[in-house]
C-alpha cells in the first residue's frame, strides 16, 4: 500500500464524537489525497470532493445500490432505493406521483395548518424545544397522511425508527427487536388496509397497483413503506432545525429574509446545503474502477458523504459559512442521479413554510447562549434539541 493514493482515516458515520463536527475530518482528508479510506465497518472508501461524490451518485452501473444503501446494511432490502435503474425507475415511476412539485405545492395549505397548529401549542409560553415541539412532529404530520400511516402511531414509530437508524452499531439486539416490531406493525397495517375502503394514499397504491408488471406482496409493501418512513420521520426536520439555529444566531439574516433583501428561494437551497440532513449513503463497486485516481475493485464499499461534497471549497467558497445569498442550487443534499430524494419537493415546501411561519409569528426567537448543540449520528445527522426563547405571542384562534 506504499503507493496507495488515498488518505487513511479510521472513522465511521455512527461515531457520536466525530459526527458532532464531521466537517473537520472531511476537510483534513480533502486537503491530502481527497479519497479517504476507513478500516471501520468492514472497510470503506469515501470521496470528499464534490465532483467525485456526484460522479459516484450518478454512475449507478459502477457504484450499485443493490448491496445496500446504508452501512451497515439495514435488516431488509429497502425498496426501491436498493435497486438500480432501470428496474428502480420502473418502481419509482409508480410512486413519483405522490411526490411531484405540484403535489407538494397543492398541499401547502395543509402544511401551513400543521405549522400553525404546532406553533400554537407553544407560542404563549415564551420558550420551547424547536426540534421536539416543531420540526420533528411537523415532518411526520406532513408526511404520514400521504403514506397512509396513522398519525396516532407517530411517536411509537418515530422512537423505533430512530433506534433502527441511529443505534444499530451499538445495540444489535435492540435493533433486531425493533425491526420485528415495526415489520409486524407495517405488514399488519397493509393487510388491514386491503379490507378497508380505498383512500388516496401511498399504502393504497402499494396494495393495488402494479410494480414492474405485478402487484406487491405485503412484505414488499413493507419494504417500500419502511423506506418512506425513514424519510418521513428523520430527514427534513434536520434542515428545519439547523436553519432555525442559524437564524437565531444571525438576526441579520432574519431581517434580510423578512425585508426581501435576500430571496427565499436561494436561501432555502443554502440551508439545505449547510445542514445536509442525510450525510452518508453507501454504494458498492461492481467492476474495477477508480476514484480520485485510486484503483477500486469489485466489491469495494464506498460511502458517499453528501456533507463532504457540500463543504467542498472548490464548489462552494467559504463552505463552512451559511451564506444565504449564495447560489447553492447544485448541493447534493438530496443525492443525485436516479436515486435523487423522492421527497425533495415536499422538503422544500416544509422548510419554507416552517421558516416563514416562525419569522412571522415568533420573530424574535433566540437560542440561549449556553446552548451546546448535540447531533444524532448515522446516515442522518440532526440536532437532538433546539431550545428557543421568545416574546410570547397569540394563538391563531386568539
Amino acid at each position, binding site marked *: 500500500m506504499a503507493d496507495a493514493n488515498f488518505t487513511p482515516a479510521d472513522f465511521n458515520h455512527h461515531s457520536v464524537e466525530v459526527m458532532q463536527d464531521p466537517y473537520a475530518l472531511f476537510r483534513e482528508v480533502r486537503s491530502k489525497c481527497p479519497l479517504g479510506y476507513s478500516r471501520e465497518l468492514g472497510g470503506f472508501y469515501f470521496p470528499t470532493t464534490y465532483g467525485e461524490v456526484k460522479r459516484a*451518485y*450518478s*454512475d*449507478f*452501473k459502477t457504484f450499485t445500490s443493490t448491496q445496500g444503501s446504508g452501512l451497515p446494511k439495514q435488516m431488509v432490502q429497502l425498496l426501491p432505493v436498493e435497486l438500480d*435503474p*432501470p428496474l428502480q*425507475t*420502473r418502481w*419509482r*415511476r409508480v410512486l*413519483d*406521483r405522490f411526490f*411531484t412539485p405540484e403535489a407538494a405545492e397543492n398541499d401547502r395549505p395543509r402544511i401551513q395548518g400543521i405549522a400553525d397548529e404546532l406553533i400554537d401549542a407553544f407560542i404563549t409560553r415564551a420558550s420551547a424545544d424547536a426540534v421536539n415541539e416543531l420540526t420533528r412532529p411537523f415532518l411526520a404530520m406532513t408526511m404520514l397522511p400521504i403514506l397512509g400511516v396513522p398519525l396516532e402511531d407517530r411517536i411509537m414509530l418515530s422512537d423505533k425508527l430512530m433506534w433502527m437508524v441511529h443505534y444499530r452499531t451499538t445495540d444489535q439486539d435492540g435493533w433486531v427487536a425493533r425491526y420485528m416490531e415495526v415489520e409486524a406493525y407495517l405488514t399488519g397495517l397493509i393487510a388491514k388496509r386491503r379490507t378497508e375502503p380505498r383512500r388516496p394514499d401511498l399504502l393504497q397504491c402499494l396494495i393495488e397497483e402494479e410494480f414492474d408488471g405485478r402487484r406487491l406482496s405485503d412484505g414488499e409493501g413493507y419494504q417500500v413503506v419502511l423506506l418512506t418512513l425513514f424519510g418521513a420521520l428523520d430527514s427534513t426536520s434536520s434542515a428545519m432545525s439547523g436553519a432555525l439555529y442559524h437564524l437565531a444566531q444571525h438576526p441579520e439574516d432574519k431581517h434580510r429574509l423578512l425585508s426581501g433583501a435576500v430571496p427565499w428561494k436561494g436561501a432555502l437551497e443554502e440551508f439545505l446545503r449547510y445542514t445536509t440532513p442525510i450525510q452518508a449513503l453507501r454504494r458498492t463497486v461492481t467492476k474495477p474502477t477508480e476514484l480520485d485516481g485510486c484503483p477500486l475493485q469489485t466489491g469495494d464499499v464506498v460511502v458517499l458523504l453528501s456533507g463532504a461534497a457540500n463543504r467542498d471549497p472548490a464548489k462552494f467558497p467559504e463552505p463552512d459559512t451559511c451564506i444565504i445569498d449564495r447560489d447553492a442550487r447544485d448541493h447534493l443534499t438530496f443525492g*443525485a*442521479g*436516479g*436515486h*435523487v430524494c423522492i421527497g425533495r419537493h415536499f422538503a422544500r415546501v416544509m422548510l419554507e413554510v416552517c421558516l416563514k411561519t416562525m419569522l412571522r409569528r415568533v420573530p424574535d426567537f433566540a437560542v440561549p447562549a449556553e446552548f451546546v448543540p448535540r447531533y444524532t449520528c448515522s446516515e442522518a445527522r440532526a440536532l437532538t434539541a433546539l431550545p428557543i426563547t421568545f416574546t410570547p405571542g397569540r394563538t391563531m384562534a386568539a
Partner: protein
Amino acid sequence: MVSITYIEHNGSSHTIEVSEGVSVMKAAVDHAIPGIDGDCGGACACATCHVYVAEPWRHLTGEASQDEKDMLECAIDLKDESRLGCQIALTEALNGIVVHMPPAQR
C-alpha cells in the same frame, strides 16, 4: 451557439439559443422550459427528459445507446422517435433542431 425549439404537447413552442455541447435536457432545465424534468441530472437514470426527435433531425442525433433504450422503456408514451434529452449533446450540426414533448414525464 445552437438554436433549439421545444414544442410542448399542447403545441406551445419555445426557441432558445444555448452553448454548443449542452444537452437537450440541460438546456431545457436551465431555461425553465416546461415539460422536461431531468430529475437525475443527466445520468441516464430516470427517464424524465423524454422527447420525440423526428426527421430530418433524427439521423443527425444518432441512435440511442442500449443503456438509453433500457431507460426509455420506463418512459410514458414511447414512440419510434423517443429519445432521452440528456443523451443528446447540442452540436453545431443540430443547430435549429426541433424536439417535441410527450404528454407527461411521470
